[in-house]
């Protein structure tokens, strides 16, 4: 009777088995799907080739080596209009990464603060935070970017108004910070000879603080003696670096911005385009993070809070030691996708003239060379690579904090 269950092997192979026999059917479907997808791909490719030939164009990335011919205002690496399109692309990519990095940090801070405050017992504060979250979440980010930019550039603080004896506007913080409608100028360090040594000392003292913390914790566990942690750490933080700094004759100086000609010169110029994009993206994404944080905290059962209270922990310690560590595990996965969204939304930089990857490679380069196919392909690939890299790193981190189930 086994022949009833197993198809007879000797009976040969029928074409219909490909469809009706479960052993072969999945293979059949996969082959069909594969062929269809390949066919579609080939069809699109063929169309592209025909269309390009009709327009007398080709696919050639050689233009990336040509002179770019345009200037970019915000540079993280040296670049001039004599540099190549490829270098302009890298400049743009770095600018994209810069605003994404800064945005992720600020959005996290804003989101956590707003999320926690929204659960505050203070009715007024909770309501203000709800208002913030609901208004930012429900209005397009592009509108926020434009609005922030309009606020910054319509401030009545032109650089010109800082000039002269009876200037209309003044610099802040002992004449070191200038907030103008073209951007904010802050002091920038000038690295003299020997400044590397100061930086190394500083990094070493950070290591020292960490080591001291470990040691004092172990000592506390062993003897129960509590050392005045904060003051010791502060000492390690400041003293060695300062000592080296003065011993070497103050190698690091500050460049203070001052008004010269049309604009401020010296110092670090944070342009309004960057500021507006950064703030808008941070506040927008922050409102989503606030919701994630809030629901993460709410997801921790009330018993945890009560147990902590029963142990006699103060509310602030309950939050830091009991609730947040547990909530973190719920918070991180959606947080990753918010970081990705922020990075992708940074491509709206073009609305405020921030020279990111979209504006260099996908903007001026595309326009001056007319190589839209190559530029768009390259740009998509770069964005894809950035997204995949971020999600890979964050997933690794997520796995490291995940509850280890045994």
């Amino acid at each position, binding site marked *: 009777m086994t022949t009833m269950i197993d198809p007879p092997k000797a009976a040969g192979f029928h074409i219909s088995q490909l*469809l*009706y026999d479960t052993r072969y059917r*999945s293979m059949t*479907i*996969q*082959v069909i*799907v*594969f062929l269809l*997808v390949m066919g579609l791909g080939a069809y*699109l490719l063929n*169309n*592209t080739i*025909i*269309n*390009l030939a*009709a327009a007398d164009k080709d696919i050639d990335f050689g233009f990336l080596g040509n002179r770019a011919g345009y200037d970019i205002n915000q540079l993280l690496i040296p670049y001039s209009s004599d540099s190549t399109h490829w270098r302009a692309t890298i400049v743009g990519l770095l600018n994209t990464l810069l605003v994404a990095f800064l945005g992720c940090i600020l959005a996290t801070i804003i989101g956590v603060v707003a999320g926690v405050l929204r659960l*505050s*017992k*203070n*009715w*007024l*504060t909770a309501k*203000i935070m709800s208002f913030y979250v*609901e*208004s930012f*979440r*429900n*209005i*397009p*980010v*592009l*509108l926020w970017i*434009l*609005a922030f930019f*309009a606020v910054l550039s*319509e401030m009545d603080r032109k650089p010109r108004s800082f000039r002269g004896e009876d200037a209309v506007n003044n610099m802040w913080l002992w004449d070191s910070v200038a907030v103008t409608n073209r951007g904010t100028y802050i002091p920038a360090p000038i690295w003299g000879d020997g400044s590397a040594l100061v930086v190394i000392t500083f990094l070493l003292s950070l290591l020292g603080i960490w080591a001291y913390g470990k040691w004092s914790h172990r000592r506390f566990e062993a003897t129960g003696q509590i050392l005045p942690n904060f003051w010791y750490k502060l000492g390690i933080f400041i003293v060695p670096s300062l000592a080296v700094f003065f011993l070497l004759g103050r190698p690091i100086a500050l460049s203070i911005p001052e008004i010269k000609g049309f604009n401020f010169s010296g110092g670090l110029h944070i342009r309004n385009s960057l500021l507006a994009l950064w703030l808008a993206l941070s506040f927008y994404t922050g409102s989503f993070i606030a919701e994630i944080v809030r629901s993460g905290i709410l997801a921790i059962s009330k018993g945890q809070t009560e147990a902590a209270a029963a142990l006699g922990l103060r509310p602030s310690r309950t939050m830091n030691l009991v609730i947040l560590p547990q909530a973190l595990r719920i918070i991180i996965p959606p947080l990753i996708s918010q970081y*990705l969204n922020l990075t*992708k*939304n940074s*491509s*709206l930089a*073009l*609305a405020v003239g921030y020279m990111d990857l*979209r504006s260099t490679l*996908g903007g001026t380069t595309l326009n001056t060379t007319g190589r*839209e*196919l190559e530029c*768009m392909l390259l*740009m*998509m690939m770069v*964005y*894809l690579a950035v*997204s*995949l890299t971020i999600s890979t790193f964050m997933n690794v981190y997520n796995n490291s904090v995940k509850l280890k189930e045994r």
Partner: protein
Amino acid sequence: MKNSKSVAFVREGMIDQQPAPASQIGAVRWLKDNLFSSVLNSILTIISLLVIFWVLSGIVPWMFGGVWNASSLSECRDILNERYGNTHYACWAVLTERWQQLLFGFYPAEEIWRAVVAFVLMLVAIAPVLFESVPRKLLWVTIAFPFLMVWLVWGGPIWGPLLVALGFVLFYVSYVVLERKSSTLLALIGSLVIGLVWWMFCVGPLSEALGSALPIGDLERVESRVLGGFMICVIIGLSGIALSLPIGLILALGRQSNLWVVKAICVGFIEFIRGVPLITLLFTASLLLNYFLPPGTAFDLTLRVIIMVTLFSSAYMAEVIRGGLAALPKGQYEAADALGLDYWQSQRLIIMPQALKISIPGIVNTFIGLFKDTTLVMFIGIFDMLGLSNAIRANSAWNGINWELYIFIGLVFWICCFSMSQYSQWLERKLRTGHH
């Protein structure tokens, strides 16, 4: 302490009920509990009050002192100067003059009723999907709506949309007939071929012939170039989400499939789309899509954008539905298998009805995201509300006006998105209690 040495005091009667102390009732109690329960809280309250005062004192006079009737910014400023002696007030007159443009773009003024009717129909069509208490018969409106909308918005004889709809009927009927004769898969492929043949080769000539023979319901044609403003956001968002639902469904199933080729293709597609910004896809729509199509076909930009937006949201939709599928207890899959249902039957009868129900809040959230993202079409020269605000400012009469337009646009989006997100939260709560 007078009585301490004499007879101990003994109360003889009950004291009447006393009102609670003033600090424990009403507004005072509420204030104490909610605003000044601790030092930190009091500080927070004061800071909050200061923030509110600072914001309101700036905005309220500006908003309510505004001018509603003027024909240009300079006229508006003259009125303000006359009235207050300065111009620190809003110029709402730009909205009085241009609100129709912001909502409907350059849609011909005498045809705007069609857009309004389509919008109302849309609300009617969506209602039975969103609320279970709405009569089920309204679902027929939902089914008819896409075709009615195309007819109302773009005009032309009614035959085109009608014949396309007929194609779906044909598709369904041939599927039912074929399924009786052969397997599900073959029936699906067969009916798909029949449907495609009908749509590609029969609809065009037939609708032309019928249109000239029986010109019924011949609305004036409106080109999609003139669509704009809020209307184009709704059209793109709605068609994007509706068309992406079936694609997202297939992608989600494909991603969960055991067939690795299918799975790899679906994962690749989803991750690619989710990895690039929407704006690059929109630029692809405006710059590149024509390269990929056979020479000689030139789609309208709006249609190209709808195609790209559909592909974009289908990847997100797939992830939402996958979440719904994953949230179903494993027992449901096993029970379906135990009943002897095949893959498609178990999906259709057991899995999908439950998974889709769980996914509705996620779908609504995807829609909110997509709806907000439709503002990006401004970058490829489609006049959505933000694009129109630029065009309005290009006019010398309104050169330099910002906030009034931004506030209007923001408010429109906020009303739409906030009500949708409230709905999705309400549904989430309802679904959650449903499980207990």
